[in-house]
């Protein structure tokens, strides 16, 4: 009589250190960093509760010298303070500009269900209402090496 062996093993699914950290700047000048100098790990909830006052939101990786900044007043994305992904060529009117930010995790398991890969993609951007009242999104997808793709 045949017997089937399904051998599926889990790995140690430890937390992957984040390579990008965020900084939020508010209209009143307050700056909140994900990891403060005092070692406090600030929860994003603090930012979310003050979304309406958010002026800039930044993702940065010091090792890669990469900084992505969302300007929530103008509705533009800046890269390393050097260039803007989106030129304000048409001076498009953007209303109700809101931050988009989350990390998409893909935990990949082999046939033994050992975690063989943990992919984190940062989704960073904003949504707004155009002059016709349509909701539009501009999102960067940034991998852990700082490579990015811009989409709408």
């Amino acid at each position, binding site marked *: 009589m045949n017997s089937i*062996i399904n051998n599926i093993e889990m790995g140690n699914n430890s937390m992957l250190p984040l390579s990008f950290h965020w900084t939020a700047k508010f209209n009143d000048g307050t700056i909140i960093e994900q990891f403060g100098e005092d070692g406090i790990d600030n929860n994003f909830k603090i930012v979310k509760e003050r979304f309406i006052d958010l002026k800039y939101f930044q993702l940065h990786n010091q090792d890669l010298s990469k900084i992505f900044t969302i300007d929530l007043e103008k509705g533009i994305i800046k890269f390393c303070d050097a260039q803007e992904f989106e030129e304000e060529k048409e001076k498009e009117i953007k209303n109700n500009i809101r931050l988009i930010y989350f990390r998409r995790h893909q935990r990949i*398991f082999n046939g033994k269900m050992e975690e063989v890969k943990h992919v984190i993609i940062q989704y960073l951007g904003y949504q707004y209402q155009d002059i016709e009242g349509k909701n539009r999104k501009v999102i960067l997808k940034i991998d852990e090496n700082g490579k990015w793709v811009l989409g709408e």
Partner: protein
Amino acid sequence: MAATFQFSESNTVSETITDGIANLNFGSNDSTGLTPTSYPVIAGESSFEKYIRAKFTSTWTEISNMKFWKSAGTLVTGEAIKAAANVSFATPSATANADSAIPTSLGTALSVNSAEGDSTIIYGASGVSGYSAYIRLQADTTVSSPAGSVNQKTFIYQYDEV
């Protein structure tokens, strides 16, 4: 801080919960971390069902958009892996259930809720356990299934965190 992820498995009639399971081996016994050679699935029969949940610990703000699917791995003759999400826990059974084949792409992936039935797991919210809802898995075979180990497979658990 980011959420820490692990799989949790539930077994037995009284629901013995094991967090941080070592493997998800299918077999002819209702237990976690079983040794397949000790509890092989006889050709023509089904494995005991596996009830698993994602468990998130540490801190986060929101976890949402949880998906689960098999992304690679060819099934051998007569082999089937079935899955269903957001089911209630019941004593795992080795009788073939009526669940569908596990999805094989993100587009058709199982959407997984929180244990409380919401689409989002909000950290620190009242009554939130940090568990996802149950995913039920079962391996089926037929008498045509070849003996021995099956092909390697790849599974993905995806979620959005902020």
